[in-house]
């Protein structure tokens, strides 16, 4: 070591302020950058799971509204064709198939069940 004691080490021949300012600024800058990178990785990993549950929620909600609408169209068809008993039984069958397809396509994506809904709607009318 070129310095005689710890005080002369901190004094740096009178240039202590500038030397320690430089090393301090460098250390703090690198540390901040490292911490930022490290913690944003952890935040991202939690975000991945949030995004996953959000996607599942969106899917579930879309399916729920699709089945609800299907039930409504089946009922509407039934009231319109109350007169004829033959037709009534036909609509009953149709709504049954509509329900069936709804349960079958619950696992499918929202877009697919939406097209299924349109199809059954056309059939009842």
């Amino acid at each position, binding site marked *: 070591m*070129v310095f005689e004691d710890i005080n002369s080490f901190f004094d740096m021949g009178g240039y202590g302020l500038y030397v320690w300012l430089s090393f301090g*600024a460098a250390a703090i*800058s*690198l540390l901040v950058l490292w911490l930022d990178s490290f913690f944003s990785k952890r935040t991202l990993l939690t975000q991945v799971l949030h995004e996953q549950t959000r996607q599942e929620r969106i899917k579930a909600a879309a399916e729920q509204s699709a089945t609800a609408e299907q039930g409504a169209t089946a009922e509407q068809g039934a009231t319109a064709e109350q007169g004829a008993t033959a037709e009534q039984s036909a609509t009953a069958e149709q709504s049954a198939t509509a329900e069936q397809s709804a349960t079958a396509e619950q696992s499918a994506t929202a877009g697919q069940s939406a097209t299924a809904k349109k199809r059954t709607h056309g059939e009842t009318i």
Partner: protein
Amino acid sequence: MWKWLHPYAKTERTYHLCQRLLPWFGLLGLAVIILATVWGLAFAPTDYQQSEAYRIIYVHVPSAVLSKSLYSAMAIAAFVGLVWQVKTSFMAMIALAPIGATVTFVSLITGAAWGKPMWGTWWEWDARLTSQLILLFLFLGVISLYKAFEDKQQAGKAAGVMAIVGVINLPIIHYSVEWWNTLHQGATIMKLGKPSMPPEMLWPLLLSILGWALVSGAIFLLRMQNEILQRDIRRPWVVALADKSLALYKGK
């Protein structure tokens, strides 16, 4: 080489490669940087002209060298991304930019702290200092241009063009001390012939450059992983990985 490089266009493989390399770069970099700093601060001989103030060189030169190297690396990544349409290349570009900005900032701060006792001023609008400041603005420009786009492929292209155009600044920085009259001293290591420095001073300097490079590498690997996670947030492998690592965090 291309055959070997090709699988790393897949983000999952790149992520795991980063994970494997990270501890090596991190721990080795930390060890080397501490060794070099202690050596430079306490054991390197005193300068006959500048006495102890010259010790700022052990942070100023590594940060300045790294600022230019990181800019070159960023521009190369941008070029590869633009020419071969490699998605991971733009991720590398944007992972490098904040590191480059930080390192350039450090070189400016340490330069000011060195300039005050030696030249009598914190700042002077001369060629070397101004071109280095422009380098900082280029890094910041690339970052903000990338952030301005919602579509990240589009963002990569725009920021990539800016990064490539900014390469013109690198030779200006390097030769500014020769082309113009400047307060800044000329090159010490990076020149033809022998470096004008005794080995007892040179060794800790070279070591500190190596340490800074390794630490920058470690931060790059970490940020690269973050970019991949962000881009592939809905991919099954990312979800599985997040499940596993968060269970690990909670287990601690």
